[in-house]
């Protein structure tokens, strides 16, 4: 049985790549950076952390020709998008300007529609609305760290929601073997590390 090899997409601003790698290594899995198109083939599973803004990340993907490589890879390899990595799975984003996303899931990204101050920053509990292997062992009291000003609006692939100032928003999606989480598992203590572990164990 070989150790799963996780590829971490490193495009544009490196953002939280360092911390994502740290959390993968914590589970014992091996991992490496995906810096060019060919790198995708080296890995069994893909993690796509996203930092910056929707247009910024999409530009970086298109400029490095990752756009197609990523979509192709997602057809057969389990993929986990984190934060913006979730958001760009949608069809379109409205941060700064209207920009099309990877269109893996039906939905759009808009400014958080709530009365609280934005960004939504802090630990929140989540409500699992559809069973998923990445939630194995997660309890209703587990908290995950969110830091975002935009939310995914989607009605079909949502597997978990969370709340902020009484506003419910999508915090996780799954379509086949493509997953996306709005929170940062690498910053969410033990529950976050469990999510990473669950993804690696798929």
């Amino acid at each position, binding site marked *: 049985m070989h150790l799963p090899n996780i590829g971490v997409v490193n495009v544009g601003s490196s953002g939280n790549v360092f911390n994502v790698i740290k959390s993968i290594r914590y589970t014992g899995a091996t991992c490496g950076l995906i810096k060019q198109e060919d790198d995708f083939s080296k890995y069994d599973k893909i993690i796509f952390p996203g*930092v*910056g803004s929707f247009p910024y990340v999409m530009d970086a993907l298109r400029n490095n020709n990752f756009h197609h490589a990523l979509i192709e890879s997602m057809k057969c390899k389990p993929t986990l998008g984190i934060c913006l990595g979730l958001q760009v799975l949608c069809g379109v984003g409205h941060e700064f300007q209207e920009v099309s996303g990877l269109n893996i899931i039906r939905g759009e990204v808009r400014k958080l529609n709530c009365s609280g101050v934005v*960004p939504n920053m802090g630990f929140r509990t989540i409500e699992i609305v559809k069973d998923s292997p990445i939630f194995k062992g997660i309890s209703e009291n587990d908290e995950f760290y969110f*830091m975002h000003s935009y939310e995914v609006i989607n009605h079909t692939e949502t597997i978990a929601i*969370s709340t902020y100032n009484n506003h419910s928003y999508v915090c996780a999606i799954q379509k086949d073997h493509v997953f996306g989480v709005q929170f940062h598992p690498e910053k969410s203590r033990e529950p976050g590390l469990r999510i990473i572990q669950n993804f690696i164990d798929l």
Partner: protein
Amino acid sequence: MNSYKPRIIVKLEIQSNHVVKPIYFEGLRRVGMPHEMAQKYFSDGADELIYIDIVASLYQRGIDYEQIKRASDNIYIPLTVGGGIRTVDDCHRLFDSGADKVCINTHALQSDSTLIDNAAQIFGSQAVVVNIEAKSRADTWRCYSDNGRIPSSKDLVDWVDEVEGRGAGEIILQSIDRDGSRKGFDFNLISKVIERSHIPVIIGSGAGNISHIIDVVKEFNPHGIALSSVLHYNKLKIPSIIESIRNALT
């Protein structure tokens, strides 16, 4: 689900290889080592850590990325790192060293505030924190730099508005008049900022006992509370703070 509770954030003030604790932003008394203290507070249940190199701007020297990497090792909560940030490239390197958010003051306040805009555009507002070191003067507050010792021309309220406009995602609000004193928070200062800010504000400076913390939570419902002295000197422990707040809010 997810009713209000403030984030408990520990502030680590770094000078060279040590965590130090100034009083009124003066003095460099050592209280521990960065990695050990980060680990300890992570284990104790802190929600976040803020690691600030308080002398990088004052001494006009670069950032010690290796030390940050070591400090962030085995830490799985958000780590905000600041001190001496002058360029977007500094921010890139910080993220590559374990930072989850970057914290900016001196350079943006005194030299070039477009640093905030540029960082927010590339890394997202949520990853850009502005540190405000405020000193009371007559009936207002002035913003300071270089570890609370060089006044800027910016009045507090103007600067709060400006940083928000430039894309900062969060403010950490410190009082030069209270920090390290454990004599309680400056309610007037906090009120001034919270009433006009549209982004999360982490309030710091002055916690000395549990009443200080409970009072400020009840009065302001702050997004986050930054603690240093009261924890470094073992006046309070994080688990008991969290529980006291939970009890106070029910």
